[in-house]
C-alpha cells in the first residue's frame, strides 16, 4: 500500500491518477487525503486537491420520480396524437379527392355528348334537303358535329367547296341554317 503521507509517493500516485491508471482503492486514498489535508499545501498538492474536489462535485444523487415518467408518456402520446391527426387529415383529403373525381368524371362525358352529339340519319337527310337549294349536281357532303349543331362542307366538281353551319332548334325536332361560307 502506497504511503500517501510520503510526498514522493503521493506525487507518483497523483501522476498515475492523471494517467487514469489508478485503481478505485488508490483513488479513494487520494480523495480521503486531500479532503482532510491541512493548509498550507505545496502548489502541486493544491492543484491535486482542486482537481479531486472538482471531480467529487461532479457526482451526486438524483431522485427517481414517477411523475416525470408519466410526463414523458404524456408528451409522447401528445406527439403521437398530433401525428395521427396529420395522418387523418391526409386520409380525409384523399377520400375527398376520390369523391370529387367520382362525382365529376361522369359529368364530363355527358357534357361532351351535349357538345358534340352524333348526327342522326334524319338530321342528315333534313340537312341535305335544306342544302338542296344551294347545292348543284353531284355535290359531296361532309358533316361533322359542333357545339349545338353541325358543320356541313360541300363540294362539287365544278365549284369550290362551301361550308354551312346548321343549328338544332331548341325543341330538338328540326334544324335550321345558321350561317354559311361560300367560296368563289
Amino acid at each position: 500500500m502506497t504511503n500517501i503521507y510520503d510526498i514522493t509517493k503521493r506525487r507518483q500516485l497523483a501522476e498515475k491518477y492523471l494517467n487514469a491508471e489508478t485503481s478505485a482503492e488508490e483513488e479513494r486514498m487520494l480523495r480521503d487525503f486531500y479532503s482532510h489535508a491541512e493548509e498550507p499545501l505545496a502548489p502541486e498538492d493544491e492543484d491535486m486537491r482542486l482537481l479531486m474536489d472538482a471531480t467529487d462535485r461532479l457526482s451526486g444523487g438524483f431522485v427517481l420520480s414517477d411523475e416525470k415518467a408519466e410526463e414523458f408518456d404524456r408528451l409522447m402520446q401528445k406527439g403521437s396524437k398530433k401525428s395521427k391527426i396529420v395522418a387523418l387529415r391526409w386520409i380525409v383529403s384523399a377520400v375527398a379527392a376520390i369523391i370529387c373525381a367520382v362525382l365529376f368524371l361522369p359529368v364530363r362525358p355527358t357534357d361532351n355528348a351535349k357538345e358534340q352529339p352524333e348526327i342522326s340519319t334524319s338530321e342528315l337527310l333534313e340537312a341535305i334537303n335544306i342544302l338542296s337549294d344551294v347545292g348543284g349536281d353531284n355535290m359531296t357532303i361532309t358533316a361533322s358535329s359542333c357545339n349545338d349543331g353541325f358543320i356541313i362542307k360541300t363540294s362539287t366538281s365544278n365549284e369550290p367547296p362551301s361550308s354551312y353551319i346548321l343549328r338544332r332548334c331548341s325543341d330538338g325536332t328540326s334544324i335550321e341554317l345558321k350561317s354559311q361560307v361560300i367560296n368563289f
Partner: protein
Amino acid sequence: MESQDFQNIAISVHPKLMNLCRSFFNRQELAYDAEDAVQETLLRLWQMRDRLSEYQKPEALAMLIAKNVCIDILKLNKEQHEPLDEARNIIGNVQADQSMIAHDTERIISNAVARLPRTQQRMLMMRAEGMSMVEIAATCNATPTSTKTMICAARKKLMEILKIRRD
C-alpha cells in the same frame, strides 16, 4: 449486484434506451444527443444498483430512469432558453468572473468542469461515483482502452483549466 451483471445489463439495454431517448428528442424537436441521455441513464442505474432487487426487471427500471433523464434534459433546455439565464451566463463568463469572483473556488471549479466535453464530464463523474473502467466502457458503448484514454485526457485537461483559472 456484481460488476459483471451491471455490464451485461448496460450492454443489453443500451439499444432500447437509445431508441426511447432518440424518439423523445425527435418528437420534442430537441437537438440533443441521445447517447448522452443514455449515458446519464446508465450512470443513474449504476447509482441505484443496490436497489435493483426491488425491481422485477432491471430493464424496466432503466426505462423509467431514461424517462426521468429525458424530462430533466427537456426542462434544462427550456430554462437555458430563457433570457434571464442568458444574462446570467454572460455574467458568469471568463472576463467578468476574473475580476468579480476570482477567488471563489466553487465558481472556478464549476466553470472549469463546464468547459469539458459532456462525455468527459460524465466519465469523470462515473469514475468519481466508483464505477470500474469496464463498467464505464459498457455504459458509454466504448472499449476499456478508449475509456481509459478519455478519462486520462479529461483529468489532464481539467487540471490544466483549473491551473489557468487559479493563476
